[in-house]
């Protein structure tokens, strides 16, 4: 312990000996690490599995059921129609399934007509959405079934914004011109990446403020504010409750939970049979192109990878390598200036192992400084990236595992930077500097 403390006190003393070269080394290292950490953070959040315990069982089914004939159209649409959802929901195979789309609206407390309505993010969905994606409830519960109902589920932040408290189950909220009863309040929850919304390219957006029942949205004519397609001549601005349900209007995402390979196979077979029966009824003129995509493959499936972030990641990695090279060069100069002292220590009986212990203490101190500085650089870089790429705004937080990983990376980087100089110092001629 005494020797360990001595090693660390020597490492600190080394900084005092030549503060400028030392700080320059740390600064260069921190710049490289900081840029790398900022991009690695975005990369991590966009590529990690948000539901590791069940991601293998979540699937996005698609059928090529557009009514216009097209023999060369072998890719199904990204979103489904109400009728597609209804048919795909009829299998009875999945342990959970939910259709959904994103929308937006204005909400306010009933009777507060003097107040301006507040814009809110809506997710129109079905009751299984909350079990599919493990959404935790703080108060109340999910809807009893998928029928139309004037009941909302709100986020905790939304409850506090409108009511100043979280337990607002049973309270009334006005959404647009309609009054709704709040039946549930969610815990603070954000799924990152928001893979259920990759079809709309919104993997890094914030979760919704208010959750609205699927059938109610159709009754009220609420449409998606992201991807919508219509392939017939109906006027969907009129009588959406009927047209939206019966027409060739595409806006829905649909997720199913298939817990076993047998369920997956059964659902695939169900989709095949569905398409065959649709073809037989003349409602599936296009080639069969069923898809059942796992949630972890959904980004690649929709070609929704953020290429800008990939480019940033590559550039930051190259920048880190350049910084490591430069820091190593500076470190070599610093160590060569101390070569005499290394020789003296060796002459006095310090073994190479003991010398490495001193160098490792030096590396540890450098790594601590580089970590703090690089985190500051990373935070600044992420702020900059967020302003350039607003879609990344929710991907800039660190959890303890990430901080530990970054500390480990800083330690390895500092060791790499010190490795060659340390070897030179340890294996250099003992007598050359001593006279």
């Amino acid at each position, binding site marked *: 312990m005494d*020797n360990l403390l001595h090693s660390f006190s020597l490492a600190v003393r080394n900084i005092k000996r030549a503060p400028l070269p030392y700080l320059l080394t740390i600064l260069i290292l921190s710049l490289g690490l900081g840029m790398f950490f900022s991009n690695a953070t975005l990369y991590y959040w966009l590529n990690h599995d948000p539901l590791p315990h069940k991601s293998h069982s979540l699937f996005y089914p698609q059928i090529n059921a557009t009514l216009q004939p097209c023999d060369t159209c072998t890719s199904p649409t990204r979103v489904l129609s109400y009728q597609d959802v209804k048919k795909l929901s009829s299998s009875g195979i999945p342990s959970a399934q939910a259709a959904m789309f994103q929308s937006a609206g204005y909400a306010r407390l009933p009777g507060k007509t003097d107040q301006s309505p507040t814009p809110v993010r809506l997710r129109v969905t079905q009751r299984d959405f909350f079990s599919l994606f493990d959404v935790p409830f703080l108060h109340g519960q999910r809807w009893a079934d998928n029928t139309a109902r004037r009941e909302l589920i709100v986020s905790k932040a939304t409850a506090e914004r409108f009511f100043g408290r979280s337990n607002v189950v049973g309270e009334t909220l006005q959404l647009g011109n309609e009054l709704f009863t709040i039946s549930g309040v969610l815990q603070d929850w954000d799924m990152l990446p928001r893979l259920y919304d990759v079809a709309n390219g919104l993997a890094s957006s914030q979760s919704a403020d208010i959750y609205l029942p699927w059938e109610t949205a159709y009754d009220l004519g609420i449409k998606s504010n992201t991807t919508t397609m219509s392939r017939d001549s109906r006027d969907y601005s009129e009588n959406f409750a009927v047209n939206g349900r019966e027409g060739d209007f595409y806006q829905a995402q649909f997720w199913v939970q298939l817990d076993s390979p047998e369920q997956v196979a059964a659902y695939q077979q169900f989709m095949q049979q569905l398409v065959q029966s649709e073809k037989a009824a003349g409602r599936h003129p296009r080639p069969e192109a069923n898809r059942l995509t796992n949630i972890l493959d959904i980004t690649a499936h929709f070609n929704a990878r953020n290429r800008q972030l990939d480019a940033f990641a590559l550039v930051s990695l190259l920048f880190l390598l350049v910084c490591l090279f430069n820091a190593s060069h500076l470190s070599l100069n610093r160590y060569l200036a101390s070569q005499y002292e290394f020789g003296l220590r060796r002459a006095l009986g310090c073994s190479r192992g*003991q010398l490495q212990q001193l160098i490792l203490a030096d590396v540890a101190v450098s790594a601590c400084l580089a970590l703090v500085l690089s985190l500051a650089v990373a935070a600044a870089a992420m702020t900059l990236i967020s302003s350039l790429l607003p879609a990344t705004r929710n991907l800039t937080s660190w959890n303890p595992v990430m901080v530990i990983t970054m500390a480990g990376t800083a330690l390895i980087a500092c060791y790499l930077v010190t490795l060659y100089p340390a070897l030179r110092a340890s294996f250099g001629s003992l*007598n050359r500097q*001593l006279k």
Partner: protein
Amino acid sequence: MITLTNLSKIFRTELIETHALRDINLQVNEGEFAALTGPSGSGKSTLLNILGTLENFDSGDYQLDGKSVKGLSDAALSRLRNEKIGFIFQSFNLIKDFSIYDNIELPLRYRGLKVAERKQRIDNALELVGLHARRNYLPGQLSGGQQQRVAIARAIAGEPRILLADEPTGNLDSLMARQVMELLEQINQRGCTILMVTHDPEQARRAGRHIQIIDGQLHDSMLYQPMATATVRAQAVAQGV
């Protein structure tokens, strides 16, 4: 104590091979005070570095206390240097931002001694060199002679059996040089073997044994000069010889 048998050392570059030491045969007994002299470039310092295991040799053998140092691992050589050998350099080689105490403590740390024992040994060494009151000074706050005394204290704090001194008075004026020589004699009288490289004939004369190296070879006539033990040499000094 020290036995060199047909020891040779060659420095090689791409174009030239330089025989720094050729077939050196030397026996140094415990308690001797030997002066190594010779012209510049004759191989004195190389020999001293080999004796201190700071440098390898190409052929022959070097036995310390009856054991060959050839083939010893880095850890074993480091331990041997730390426990058996003390170095005194012409330029003192003190770490300038370490206090006197910290400088002397350095080799004791590598031996893994406890704090109390280190302190005891440092106090003893500083008492011997007369610098106990300046234990917290930095080397730059001391004169050249005092710095060399600190270096001697560092060398003897580990109670080595051999002191290797490479022109220990080379950077000192005559008064300070005399003080350092007296200190070395005092240490030798306690039984420590000393090998000292020097250019000064007066200092060589004060050592009990005079070993001359010319062109990497021991000069025979000087090699077989009668060896003086510490006691014999002390008597010679008392008689004014």
